Every structure is written in C-alpha cells, then in structure tokens.
C-alpha cells in the first residue's frame, strides 16, 4: 500500500505530530537523533529550501538516457519536477517542468524525443534549452488583445538550473555559483565514483520505481550503516558479501555528507564466519544454499580493492556497485513521511550477451524485490512508523562512541554522525 492508504496511525493522527516542539537537538549531541527530523513538516520545508534547492548538486539523469539531440527525460531536483534535455549541439539543459505562462507541468512523458516543448494549455513553445520561442497570438488578433509591447520572449523562458556533468552523470542545482562537481564530491568519493563511470559508455537496462514510506534521510542512514548490513541481510551474512571481519570500510568525505560503504568479497564464501560472529548474527542460516550459484558469481572487471561499493551522494543519489550489478538510485523526497525511489539499472556498452545476463541475474539482489533491497525497504518503513507513532522522542547513535567520519569497523555509526554534523550546520539545528 502507498503511505496515503495508511489506516491505523496515518500521518497526522499521532498526538506527537501535533505537539509544539522546540526544534532543539538533544543535548547528547550527535549520539542521539531527535524523531522530529523525520516527521516534522517545517523541517521538511527547510530541507527542501536549504538542501535540495540550496548549495547542493542533485542527480537528475545519466547522459546515456538522453543520447541524441532532442532526447529528454522527466526528472526531479528534490521534490521539484524538472526536465533534462539534450540540445541540437549536444549540450544538456535542465529546467523547471512548469510553463512560464500559467504554470502547467507541460512535460508528461517519462522520456522521449522532441524538436521543441509545447505547453498543451496555450501552446507556448520552448526550445531544448528552455528559451521561450512562440506565444500564439502574441500581437493579438485584428489589432486587439495580445501581449503588451514590452513583452519580450527572452524574459519569459523556463526557469533554468545550473548543470554539471561528470563522466556521463548529470547533476543540477538551483544555485548558480556552485563549486565544481569534483570538489563537491571530494577525493574520497570521486575514486569509487570513477571506478563505475570514468571512461565507460553505459548501457541502460531499465527502471524500477517505488514509494518508500519513510523519510528520505533514512535511505542515507541505511547505506552509511554497515552494522545493519551484517545483521538484517541473511544473503550478505550467509554468502560472505559483507561480514564483520571481512575486508571492508565505511568511508566518508571531509564534509561528512557523502559516503561509500565498501567491502571485498571473501573467497571462502560463508565458511569464513567464525563461531563467535556467527552467534551474534541471527540471520546466519546453516541450511541456506543456492541451487544456482551464478547469482553471486563475481567477474573481476574493475581496478579496485572492493567488490562492493555503495555510494551515498548527498542529497539524492546512490551509486550501486554490488559485485557486477550496477545501478543508480535517485531519491525524490515526498514530504516528511515518504520518498520515491527511481532505480536505473545499467551495464556497459561492449558487454557480452552472457555478461549482460549475468548482471540481470545478479539484479535479483537489489531493487524493490531484491533479496537485500526488499529487506531495507521493510526496515525503513518500520523505523518511520516507530518514530511517528511512539511517544519516545529520540534514537541512539552510539556505536563506535562519538567518532565521526570514516571507520574501518563495520560495527560503527560514525558515518551517520558525520552526516548529521553536516546536516545540522546547513539546517541551523
């Protein structure tokens, strides 16, 4: 069911949501997280203004989705609908999906190819850069009506966003004087980002979309939380993909907002879990074996010590490299209690037919029906319900003490604390 279908304890029904709260972070500091950052509508509004519409680079498209002149894609910056289009000269442009005239969201197709954009309401037309080209009856009819003399098309184009493209990944910002995207990501994050994208022609495999009835920050937390990965996911635990003790790291950038959860798959899958860890990990199942082990085959194709890197790129992008299944997830915040996830799965041009099929088979790990993905979606829903409906008002973030940032141990929440350090600064909390 969608979050709007909630019957018991629907958003807005809990006394907690109606309390006057002082938006004051708990005195413990970063070892505690107040529930109101996940549920409060004023906080959500401030996030849209200061984060998604603020000084951030937001993922909007992969260049491979809009290869030819005239190709476009409906997309989002934060919750705001935008259009990404490729111009006749090959350049990529991003503008609001809102007619400059009466505000109609004119672009309705998920993607396609056009010569120009025409708002269906009054047929105002725009070029592929968002400039206003045509206004029907601009000079009126028989010298009556029409636009005033001082109406100039160039003053009434679509609102355009700042664009940055890095190795075929398109980012946009409402802020004009953003730092270069490389600086925004930082060296620590750039390394594993380039492993997936640099010098590679992507081949799009297709899309999944889902509503996740949880606050958008929970997705970042989930992928900055290697502790859960060793506990919730029987697939990871049993098949040695991310196990406490394996070669792994939780990497954060200097600002604390981005992260990379990285691990190297053990060769002796499953058997390398020592008895004491096994006791801690209830998800470990002795009887769990695959009839078709191709699911977890790993074809070494990258010059990287890691076989798995999950990157959280603030504020709305996840880059997934899970063995050989590759994809990005675009987070579209949808009010405090909901987010839309748009998954684009891909391989590389030049992949053999067998490699493509291998990636597709391995895709069963991820997504809204993936063996890892579905468990995360369920867990995040549970968290949102808990923080919205219980009278208790904060959570605990004490794993690994009060350290912040990169952590060699998986049993640590230091990357989440680093993210909230950054968040509090931007949000003034």
């Amino acid at each position, binding site marked *: *069911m*969608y979050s709007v*279908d*909630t*019957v*018991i*304890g629907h958003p807005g029904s809990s006394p907690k949501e109606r309390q006057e709260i002082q938006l004051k972070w708990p005195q413990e500091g970063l070892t505690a997280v107040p529930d109101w950052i996940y549920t409060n509508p004023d906080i959500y509004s401030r996030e849209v203004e200061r984060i998604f519409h603020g000084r951030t680079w937001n993922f909007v498209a992969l260049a491979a989705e809009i290869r030819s002149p005239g190709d476009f894609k409906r997309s989002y910056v934060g919750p705001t609908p935008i259009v990404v289009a490729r111009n006749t000269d090959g350049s990529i442009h991003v503008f609001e999906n809102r007619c400059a005239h009466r505000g109609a969201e004119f672009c309705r197709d*998920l993607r396609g190819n056009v010569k120009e954009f025409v708002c269906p309401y009054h047929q105002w037309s725009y070029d592929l850069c968002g400039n206003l080209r045509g206004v029907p009856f601009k000079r009126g009819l028989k010298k009556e009506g029409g636009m005033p003399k001082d109406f100039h098309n160039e003053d009434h184009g679509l609102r355009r966003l700042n664009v940055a493209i890095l190795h075929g990944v398109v980012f946009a910002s409402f802020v004009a004087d953003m730092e270069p995207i490389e600086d925004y990501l930082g060296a620590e994050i750039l390394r594993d980002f380039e492993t997936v994208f640099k010098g590679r022609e992507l081949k*799009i*495999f*297709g*899309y*999944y*979309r*889902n*509503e*996740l*009835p949880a606050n958008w920050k929970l997705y970042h937390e989930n992928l900055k939380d290697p502790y859960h990965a060793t506990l*919730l996911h*029987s*697939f990871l635990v*049993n098949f040695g993909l991310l196990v406490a003790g394996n070669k792994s790291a939780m990497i954060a950038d200097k600002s604390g907002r981005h992260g990379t959860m990285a691990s190297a798959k053990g060769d002796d899958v499953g058997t390398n879990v020592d008895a004491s860890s096994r006791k801690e990990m209830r*998800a470990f*199942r002795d*009887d*769990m074996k*695959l*009839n*078709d082990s*191709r*699911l977890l085959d790993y074809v070494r194709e990258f010059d990287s010590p890691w076989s798995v890197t999950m990157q959280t790129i603030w504020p709305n992008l996840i880059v997934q490299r899970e063995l050989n299944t590759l994809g990005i997830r675009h987070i579209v915040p949808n009010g405090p209690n909901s987010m*839309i996830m748009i998954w684009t*799965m891909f391989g590389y041009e030049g992949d053999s037919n067998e490699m*493509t*099929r291998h990636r*597709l*088979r391995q*895709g*069963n790990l991820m*997504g*809204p*029906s993936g*063996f890892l*993905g*579905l*468990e995360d*979606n*369920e*867990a995040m*829903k*549970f968290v949102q319900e808990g923080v919205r409906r219980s009278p208790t008002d904060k959570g605990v973030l004490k794993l690994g003490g009060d350290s912040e940032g990169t952590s060699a141990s998986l049993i640590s929440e230091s990357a989440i604390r680093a993210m909230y350090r950054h968040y509090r600064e931007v949000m003034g909390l």
Partner: protein
Amino acid sequence: MIPGYDLTPPDPKAVRELRLEIEEFHAAYCWTLDRGAIEKWPDFFTDDALYRITGRENAEVALPVGLVYAEGKAMIRDRAFAIARTQMFAPRYMQHFVSNVRVVAAQESAIKAQSNYLLLQTLMEGPTTIHQSGRYYDSFARQGGRLLLSERQCVYDTLIIPNDLIYPV
C-alpha cells in the same frame, strides 16, 4: 510488447479447450501462491524456464531489466526458499485475479497465452489495496500431459511499486 507474442491468434472457438486448460493452470498457480505454499511455486515451471517481472515502461521499449529475473528453475527455487525462510518482511496476504485469457498460439510445440492479472495485498493493519495491475505473457510446454511454464513474463502497469514486491506474481 514482449517479443514472440505479437501473433495472429487462432480462432477462439477452435481453442476453447486449451483456453480452459490454461485457466485451470492459472487457478492452481494462484491458489498455490495465495495460500502461502510458496515453496511449491517452482513446480509450475520447466527446468529451463524464464521468469521475469518488469515494468511496462521497460517492456515497451525492450529494456531487459527484471524486478525479478530468474533463468531456470534452480533460480526460481532459490527465490522461493529465500522468501519462505530467510527474508525479513512484514506479514501480509496476497490474492491474485487472472482474467481475459487470450490464447495466441496453440501448436503443441508452442502454446502461448496472454492474460491480465490483478494482485491485491493486505497488510495486517492496512486496507486491501491493488498492489499491481499487469499482464502475463506465458509460454507453456506440455510435460507428462500437464502444462508447465517455459516462460512467464509479468509486465506491470503499476510503475510506482508500493514499497516493495515480496511474493511472486
């Protein structure tokens, strides 16, 4: 939309018997899933069957991704085992409704049909909701007098999945 199904269908009157047989197959398949006997689900497939669930936005432009993508009965078994025994998710009931069965090929070597499906989900504290609306693209093989799926492609219109899709379609 799915390659291999854009055929001139035989006269429906001539294949009534086969259509009934396919409807009976759907009823048994849905009964198995809807009563929660998930580990019996692989028994409806041939050893080399392809099982795939994908959004209509992908199928319409021949994008290959699968929300679920299983090549062969062994992978189908692994999914059944995982969902029945190891995956973590909130309890729920599912009901499948299959209708508009349309036989598009009726040679014994190639039996193909398209059917619409509606999948309803009920969470323990939730309403009953339409979880997915879609169409099956099925190829059958007859083994031991019994129809088995050699291919089932489930193409859903409900592009925005309500959180997740746990059980098979």
